[in-house]
């Protein structure tokens, strides 16, 4: 009669987390969803119709997706080689690398934002370097620009790209690449046909992590871009916290959620297919 219960008792270990998620995540989320589709006269989609009719909101969606994609891309380009190196490193070198990757997580975003100001400002290290090397004729503004935001956000989220990839790479038998070499495959071919497909699960989860984090980041854009650049997350925050417009906030939150979930799920399916085809 208890047939619906999981047969494996170990599965019960997930129960506290499931209850926790149900109460503190699923229920508020469902409430939020309800908020966005139920008007004073019953169910309605007018909130969304209004939201999408406003050209400005499309710009906000564009900002959100563009920044999230760029942050994901930059994290990937920087993080992937690091993950490979980390998996290869041994002993003290590995410990130091891991520490260097994880420790910055303990520094709050606000502190980091202040640190970046010092590096990114017009008389900061980067500007000085670019002027000294002749790439720039004169110092340019880096602070409060989109590149600055992308660099900063990628810096914060990098560990979330590196660690999932690393956890997959370290399980790959180093002999596979050697086998490829003895079969006449160049390093690039080996990377494309062996390492890349085998690390794909790590890449997918890393990208999903960073994309989800950057599509919903709130504090980083407000510190690194200021108030002139709105994303769905900052717009949501403002609707709730300042404008006290909970309906609008629910709508933007739902749009954000739907976009993030569909992109993460969609790209996961797509990458799996590509991984299999490669």
């Amino acid at each position, binding site marked *: 009669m208890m047939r619906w219960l999981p047969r494996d008792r170990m599965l019960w270990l997930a129960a506290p987390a499931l209850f926790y998620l149900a109460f503190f995540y699923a229920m508020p989320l469902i409430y939020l969803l309800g908020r966005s589709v139920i008007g004073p006269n019953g169910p309605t989609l007018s909130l969304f119709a209004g939201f999408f009719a406003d050209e400005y909101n499309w710009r906000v969606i564009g900002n959100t997706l563009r920044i999230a994609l760029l942050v994901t891309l930059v994290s990937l380009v920087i993080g992937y080689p690091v993950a490979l190196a980390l998996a290869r490193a041994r002993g003290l070198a590995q410990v130091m690398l891991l520490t260097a990757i994880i420790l910055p997580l303990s520094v709050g975003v606000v502190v980091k934002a202040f640190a970046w*100001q010092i590096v990114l400002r017009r008389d900061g290290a980067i500007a000085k370097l670019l002027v000294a090397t002749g790439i720039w004729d004169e110092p340019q503004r880096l602070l409060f620009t989109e590149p600055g935001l992308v660099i900063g956000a990628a810096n914060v989220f990098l560990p979330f790209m590196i660690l999932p990839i690393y956890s997959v790479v370290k399980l790959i038998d180093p002999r596979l690449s050697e086998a490829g070499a003895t079969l006449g495959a160049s390093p690039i071919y080996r990377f494309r046909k062996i390492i890349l497909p085998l690390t794909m699960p790590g890449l997918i989860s890393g990208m999903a992590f960073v994309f989800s984090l950057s599509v919903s980041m709130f504090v980083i854009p407000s510190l690194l871009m*200021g*108030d*002139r650049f709105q994303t769905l997350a900052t717009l949501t925050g*403002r609707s709730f916290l300042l404008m006290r417009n909970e309906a609008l906030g629910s709508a933007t939150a739902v749009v954000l959620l739907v976009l993030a979930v569909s992109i993460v799920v969609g790209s996961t399916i797509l990458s799996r297919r590509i991984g299999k085809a490669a």
Partner: protein
Amino acid sequence: MTKIVTTDSAGTRLTRRTLLHTGAALGAGIAMPGILRAQAREIVIGGAASHKPWVEAHVMPAFEKKYNARITFEGTKSLVNLEKMQKNKDKPYLSIVQMDDPVMILAVKEGLLEPITPAKVPNMAKLKPGTVHMNGMWANYLQPWQGIAYNTNVLKTPPTSWAEALDPKFKGRIIVPSLQNTEGLPNLFMFAHLATGKPMTEAYKDIDAAFREIKKLKPNLLTVYSQMPQAFSLLEQGEAHMILGALSSFGMQRRLDGAPVSMAAPKEGIFPVPSGIAVVKGGPNMELALAYINELLGAEVQSKIAPPTFALPTNVDAPVPPGMPTDAKIHTIDWAFVAENRNEWVKRWDREMAS
């Protein structure tokens, strides 16, 4: 008998309230102090946590001695005070609130405040114009102000006009507060004034002109902040040269700390940051409450509390603290107008000021 009781955080508020309201119903040990309090005259003031130091140092001791009374100061946020008043509307325990003007408007709308008159608060007669609002619903006891904060290493002389910020030489060097911050609103009115050339009292309603003019600032904007410390850090590092609409309480404190910043009061005028005080409708010990307000509006107390808060006194007899503008034009903000339109302005700001 005098005793000072202060609480300074929202966290202890519940305990206190529980104590005050259920004390009688509980055991004798807890009920006793409640009875004692009722005998000694006491008022409870709801104010900001940041008020606590100067209330304790400069207001409380003299007041308690003079009136043989006790003050309980609950320092929290304006909106929390509003909530306290709403929740206890039938049986208020706060006698006085010290809150920001925009919150005062909300309190008035909810019918939580009672007007004060010069008959009961004689020092009201000594106040500068524009410091008594909505027919005496509240008065300003201090005026911290908003002007231009500038980096003293870059600008050797203080800016004399708000229009200087439009000079192309400040490309990417100007910071303004976001409209979602209360201190962001005066810039809008100032630029309406700059655009129209009309007196501020007329100009501020021309929001279209305001946006038209402030958009000219875009090339010069480094950023629009929502975190004031960040803005000041950029100013002090020299990445920014000016913050339009900076708070004197913040900017003067940084100057005192040795940062290369100063506050300027340009010729077009400055804006007071509303520090209001009001009587809670139906609050206990009304005479005592009015006496307290009278003290706070008096020259003696204001001359003590203006310097540490880098504010201008509102009583004409109180001297302007050294380092503060003495002859600046002070504009009053129409907070009712703000409350009505702010969300619309924020939306428009997002669209028109976007980078």
